C-alpha cells in the first residue's frame, strides 16, 4: 500500500512541475514584469523610474531564469523563476502585489470557505441521491417524465439567478437571514444558511440526472434480476442492492472533489460576502493582483492532484474487486 501511494505521489510530481512552468510562462514570459508594472501604474505617463521601483518592491526586478551578476548558486536562485515559481513547491507563496502575506491570508480564509462548501457538498449529495432514487423508483411513469423535464429546466437556469433570487426572496422580502456577511464561530450559521441552500438548489438539476444514470446502469445488471426473482419488492431492491452497489461510483466520483472544497466557491462567496478563498480570488482578479492569482492556480492544481490520489485510494478501499497492481 505504501509503495503504491509513493508511486502515485511520484507520478503527480511531473504534473505539478508542468503546472508550475505553465503559470511561469503565462505570468512572466507572455508579458514581461515591465508590462505588468505599466498596467498597474497606468499605461500612460509612467516614468521608467516608477516602473523600476514597482518591480524592485515586489521582487520582479530580477532576471527571469539566469542571473549573471550573482555569485555561485545565486546565479540560479536570484531569479524570478526561483523566487516566485520554485518556492511554490514549498508552499511559500510570498507576498501579494499589495504587500500582504499570501500564506497567512490563505490559512485565515480556509475556515469560512469550508463552512460553506462542506455543507453544500454533504447536503447536496444526500438530496441529489435521494431524488435520483425516487425518480428511478417511479420510472416509466409521469413522475419520471416530469421529474426529468424539471431537472433539465433547473439545469438551464443560470447559477447567478439562483443567488440573486435567493437573496431577494429570503433576504430582502422575507427578511429571514442577513443578505451577506460573516460572523465569528457558531454565530456564523445565519450567514451560511442561505448560501448553502442556494448552492444545493443550483446543483440539483445536473446532480439528479447524473446519479439517475448511475442507478439505471446498475439496474440493468444481473444481480438486480436475481433480487427481483427471489421476490424482493422494488423498494428493497433499490435500497439494499442498487444503492449499495451504486455507492461505489458515487463515492469515488465525490472523493476527487473533496480537497477542492478548500478553494470555496467563487461566485457564492463573493455574492454573500463570505471572507473565504473564493472571494479572495475574485478580489485578486479584480485588483489584478498577479501574485495571488498565481498562488491560487498552483494551490488549486495541488488540491486537484490530491483529489486524484484519494480517488485511486478510495477505489481500493471501497471495492474489494479492485486490487492493487
Amino acid at each position: 500500500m505504501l509503495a503504491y501511494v509513493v508511486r502515485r505521489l511520484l507520478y503527480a510530481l511531473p504534473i505539478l512541475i508542468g503546472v508550475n512552468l505553465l503559470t511561469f510562462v503565462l505570468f512572466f514570459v507572455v508579458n514581461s514584469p515591465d508590462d505588468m508594472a505599466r498596467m498597474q501604474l497606468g499605461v500612460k505617463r509612467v516614468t521608467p523610474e516608477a516602473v523600476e521601483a514597482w518591480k524592485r518592491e515586489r521582487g520582479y526586478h530580477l532576471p527571469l531564469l539566469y542571473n549573471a551578476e550573482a555569485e555561485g548558486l545565486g546565479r540560479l536562485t536570484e531569479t524570478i523563476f526561483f523566487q516566485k515559481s520554485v518556492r511554490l513547491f514549498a508552499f511559500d507563496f510570498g507576498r501579494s502585489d499589495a504587500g500582504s502575506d499570501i500564506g497567512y491570508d490563505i490559512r485565515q480564509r480556509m475556515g469560512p470557505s469550508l463552512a460553506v462548501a462542506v455543507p453544500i457538498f454533504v447536503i447536496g449529495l444526500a438530496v441529489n441521491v435521494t431524488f435520483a432514487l425516487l425518480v428511478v423508483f417511479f420510472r416509466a411513469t409521469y413522475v419520471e417524465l416530469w421529474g426529468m423535464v424539471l431537472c433539465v429546466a433547473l439545469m438551464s437556469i443560470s447559477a447567478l439567478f439562483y443567488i440573486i433570487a435567493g437573496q431577494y426572496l429570503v433576504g430582502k422580502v422575507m427578511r429571514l437571514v442577513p443578505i451577506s456577511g460573516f460572523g465569528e464561530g457558531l454565530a456564523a450559521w445565519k450567514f451560511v444558511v442561505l448560501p448553502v441552500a442556494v448552492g444545493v438548489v443550483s446543483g440539483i438539476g445536473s446532480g439528479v440526472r447524473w446519479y439517475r444514470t448511475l442507478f439505471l446502469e446498475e439496474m440493468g445488471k444481473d444481480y438486480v434480476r436475481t433480487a427481483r426473482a427471489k421476490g424482493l419488492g422494488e423498494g428493497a431492491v433499490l435500497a439494499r442492492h442498487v444503492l449499495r452497489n451504486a455507492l461505489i461510483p458515487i463515492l469515488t466520483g465525490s472523493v476527487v472533489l473533496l480537497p477542492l472544497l478548500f478553494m470555496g466557491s467563487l461566485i457564492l462567496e463573493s455574492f454573500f460576502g463570505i471572507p473565504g478563498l473564493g472571494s479572495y480570488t475574485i478580489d485578486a482578479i479584480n485588483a489584478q493582483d498577479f501574485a495571488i492569482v498565481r498562488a491560487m492556480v498552483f494551490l488549486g492544481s495541488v488540491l486537484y492532484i490530491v483529489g486524484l490520489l484519494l480517488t485511486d485510494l478510495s477505489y481500493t478501499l471501497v471495492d474489494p474487486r479492485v486490487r492493487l497492481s
Partner: protein
Amino acid sequence: MPFQPVLLWTDALLFLLVGLAVLFAWQARRREHLRAPWREVARRPLAMASAVVLGAYALIGLADSVHFRPALEQPGPQGERRYAPEVWSLLDLALAPLRLQAEKTYSAPFAVRLYVKETVQAPDGTLQRVRPRLRWGGAHLEDPGRRWADVAARAARGAAGGLALWGLAGAAWLAWRARRWGCRWREALARVAAGRTELPWRAVWLTAAALLLLAGAVAALAPHYHVLGTDKVGEDVLYQSLKSVRTGLVIGTLTTLVMLPFAVLLGLAAGYFRGWVDDVVQYLYTTLNSIPGVLLIAAAVLMLQVYMANHPEAFPTATERADMRLLFLCLILGITSWTGLCRMLRGETLKLRELDYVQAAQAFGVGSGRILLRHLLPNLMHIVLISVVLDFSALVLAEAVLSYVGVGVDPSMHSWGNMINAARLEMAREPVVWWTLAAAFLLMFALVLAANLFADAVRDAFDPRLRGA
C-alpha cells in the same frame, strides 16, 4: 457604395461554422448510416420544437454578424466618400428605432414616466419633485392613463400580423406537402393537426406560431414603448438583450470550433500511435486539467488585458478590440475544455484500432494517415458531435459567470453576463429595478433550455448505449 463591409474575426469564423454545418448536412443526406440517427432526432417533438427556437436565436445571431460601416452624408476634403467610425450590423439596422430611442435613465417596462424623480420648475415658479414623462416611451399618448388599453390594442394588432404571416407560410408549406403526399390539402391539414405525420410537424408549427405571435406583438410595441424597460443610461433593454444573443452564440459555438482540431488530432494520435505520443498527450491533458478551469481562464484573461493595455496600436477600433477579446476568450475556454473530449477520443481510438477492419487495412499496407482519416475518424464523429452539442449550453451559462468574475467579454460588448453584472446591485433599490435581470435571465434560459433538450435528443440518437439513461 453606400456602406463599407466590415468582417470581424468572429464573423468570419461564425460563417465558416455555418458553412461546415451545411457541408456536413449535405454529406449526411447522402449516407444512410448518417441519416438514420438524425431522423431519430427529427422524430422527437420536443427536439424539433427546440430546434425551431434555436433557429430563431441563430437567425438573430447571424443577422448581428453581418457588419458594415454606413457612409457619411458629407464627403471628405477631396470629395471621396467617408464612412462612419462606428460599426453597424444588419440587426442594428432592423432595430434602429430601439437603438436611437434612448431615455435619460431607468424606466420600467411599458412605462411612460421616468423611474427617478426630478426637480422641475412648475409654471407658477415653485420647484416640484416629479417623475417626468419619457422622451420616447408612450410619448404618443396624450392621456397616460389610457396606456394599457393602447398597449393591448397594439399588441393585438402585432400578434394578428404575426399570426397572418404564420398562416401564409403554413398554407404555402401545406400546399407543397400535399403535393408530396399526393393528397388534397384539406387531408394534409387534418393529418398534420392530428399529429399523424412521420415527423412532428404539428410541434414545429405550434412553436413557430408561438414565436411569431410574440415577435409580432413585440415588433408592434417596440417603436412606441420600451417593452423591457431601459437601463441606467437609458438604453433600451430589449435592444441589449437581442444584441447579447450573438455573444452567447459565439461563445457557445466558436469555443468548440477552436478546440476541436486539438482534441481530435491529439486524441486520435494518442490512441493510434500509443507509446511516447500517448504519454505526451496524456501528460498534456492531465496537467491542463489539474488547473481549476476558472482560475486558468482568469489568469489567461488577466494576461490578455495586460497585453491589450500595452499594445493599443494592434486594435484600431473599440469594436475590433472587443471582438478580439471575445475570440481570445473562446480560445482560452477551448483550451480549458478540450481535455475531456480528447480523453474520450483517445479511449475510443484505443478500442477501435484493435478491430478487425483496422487490422485488415494495416495488413493491406494502408498508410497511418489514411487509416486515421478514412477508417477511424468517421467512427469517432458521433462522440465529437455529442460533446459539441452538450457543451454549448454550459458555455452559454459560463459566459455570464465569467463576466461577473470580471474575466468575461469586453465590458463594452453587449452580453447577458454584462447585463446581469450591471443590474445586480440595483436589486437593493426601492422599488426594485428588476427588468434588466429578468430580460437577461429569460433570454438565456430559453436558449439554454432549447439547447439542452436538443442535445439530449442528439445524444440519445447517436449513442445507443445511453438510450433510456
